[in-house]
């Protein structure tokens, strides 16, 4: 009798210990899986951002060499690999190529007196919309050569457009490069890597000496004018430009109005514009 009772006690204890271990292990796996999933989602968005920058490097190279024959392919991975051991779900993404004015348009104007003359403009954006399983969704938008990162309702310029300021004694000049997108609209959703072919369709240049009292006005008709407004404010501050006398930023009048950036005491404005086509 004594021996049976001792044996029973051992078995019950073993069973209880086994169930406790299984429960604890399952809980740890689930928690760790979520942590790992969030980490993968964040790394994935960073990878997409890196791919967009490589695309910009390819555009710069094509523009600098005026090569309208070569096509450079770049990779964008749409989703995450997941983790089979932790039963992690795979996040996916959508890539949207919009060469029209509906997403982004920017016009360059010469302003004298009260009138404006249109000099040149670009349009088009490439948008990556994440569909994350664990981490909050982040969208990346390629506009005019810069990359905007949007998270929930906030957007910011993650990679600056290529503008440079050259200071003279009493004046300043602006030089830069802009990239417009042309061709047909497309959209793709998935998890795997896709190859995007980038080609140069056209090159133009705006080179203008600005007379005293005149100005150059950049008009942004875009979805993320908040990000552009914030960037121009920061750019002016870093470059030591007076926010009243050298540069004036006019906010959109409504939710869909344009943002206007007036470069007031500018002496010269030189911008190379490349028209690119992206095909999937």
């Amino acid at each position, binding site marked *: 009798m004594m021996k049976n009772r001792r044996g029973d006690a051992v078995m019950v204890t073993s069973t209880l210990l*086994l169930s406790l271990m299984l429960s604890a292990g399952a809980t740890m796996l689930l928690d760790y899986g979520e942590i790992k999933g969030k980490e993968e989602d964040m790394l994935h968005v960073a990878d997409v951002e890196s791919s967009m920058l490589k695309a910009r490097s390819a555009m710069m190279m094509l523009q600098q*060499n005026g090569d309208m*024959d*070569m096509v*450079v392919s770049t*990779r964008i*991975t749409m989703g995450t690999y997941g983790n089979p051991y932790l039963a992690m779900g795979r996040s996916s993404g959508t890539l949207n190529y919009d060469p029209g004015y509906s997403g982004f348009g920017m016009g360059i104007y010469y302003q004298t007196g009260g009138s404006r003359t249109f000099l040149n403009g670009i349009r088009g954006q490439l948008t990556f919309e994440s569909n994350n399983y664990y981490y909050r969704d982040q969208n990346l938008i390629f506009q005019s050569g810069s990359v905007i990162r949007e998270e929930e309702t906030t957007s910011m310029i993650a990679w600056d457009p290529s503008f440079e300021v050259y200071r003279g004694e009493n004046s300043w000049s602006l030089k830069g490069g802009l990239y417009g997108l042309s061709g047909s609209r497309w959209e793709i959703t998935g998890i795997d890597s896709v190859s995007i072919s980038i080609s140069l369709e056209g090159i133009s240049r705006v080179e203008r000496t600005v007379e005293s009292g005149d100005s150059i006005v950049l008009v942004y008709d875009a979805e993320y004018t908040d990000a552009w407004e914030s960037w121009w404010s920061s750019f002016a501050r870093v470059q030591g430009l007076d926010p009243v006398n050298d540069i004036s930023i006019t906010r959109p009048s409504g939710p869909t109005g344009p943002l206007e950036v007036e470069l007031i005491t500018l002496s010269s404005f030189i911008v190379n514009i490349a028209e690119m086509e992206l095909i999937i």
Partner: protein
Amino acid sequence: MVSLIMIAGIVISLLGMIFATYLPAWGKDNEAQTLESTMGSFMDLKAGMDTLAVGGDEGTSLTTAIALGSEGGPMFGFGRMTGSIQVDPAKGMMRLGDGSGIVMAQSRGILEYSSRNINVEDQTITLEGGALIREQSGASVLKGNPNFLVRRYRNTGETKMFVHMPTLEGSGQSFAGTSTYLVSTTLVSVETTEYEMGIGTETVFRITSEHHDIWSTHIWSQVIAGGLVESDGVSDNDFLTATGVDANGDDYFEITFYDLDSVSIKSSVYQININ
């Protein structure tokens, strides 16, 4: 005693389920993930090589990390896979010449990766002539297009061809294993040559490749998109295609253009070192 046997039975059932179901599934996922990562690396390599050719800065290098395989999962090593990578400077010959046999340009060399999987079908990834090709179960798909362009300009009526012909040079040594290798690609030389083709001059482009079917499909679609009309073998229109086996027993695809106005060839040479 009975409880002990019952518990042992449950544990053995659990282990059996893991071994029979989960381990192969994990192995498959692990192998598929590694293959996807390797393809991503090859895509990055091709993008880098294209950019180097555009930049034209001879002596510039780029380094790409390519994982040949995977150590597999913990404890049981499920999903462990190996792969091999090799530069073969003799394969993937491309030749561009006129109908009389004069060669205007030629290139050769491929970078090839082959996987040795347990759970997933083996894959081969080949970078040849600027094209990135994935082959699995005897079927090939183009994952990165070569630079081959033929355009008929509506305003002038001129027909122009552009082709990038990259030569890949390497030691010919093969590397195998599960590790990640660094592939260093240096642009040795690049030059662009333009030829004005006379009236009635044929232009012949030939690629000798195991993947000639993929080349055939891609080039045909590019040429048709450029506005050219295929010859029906009776009347000479704009181009005619042919496939066959050469004197060495290698498959080839050939396209003959009848009246191109000009041909622009970007010839580049890359030195590939695998560390």
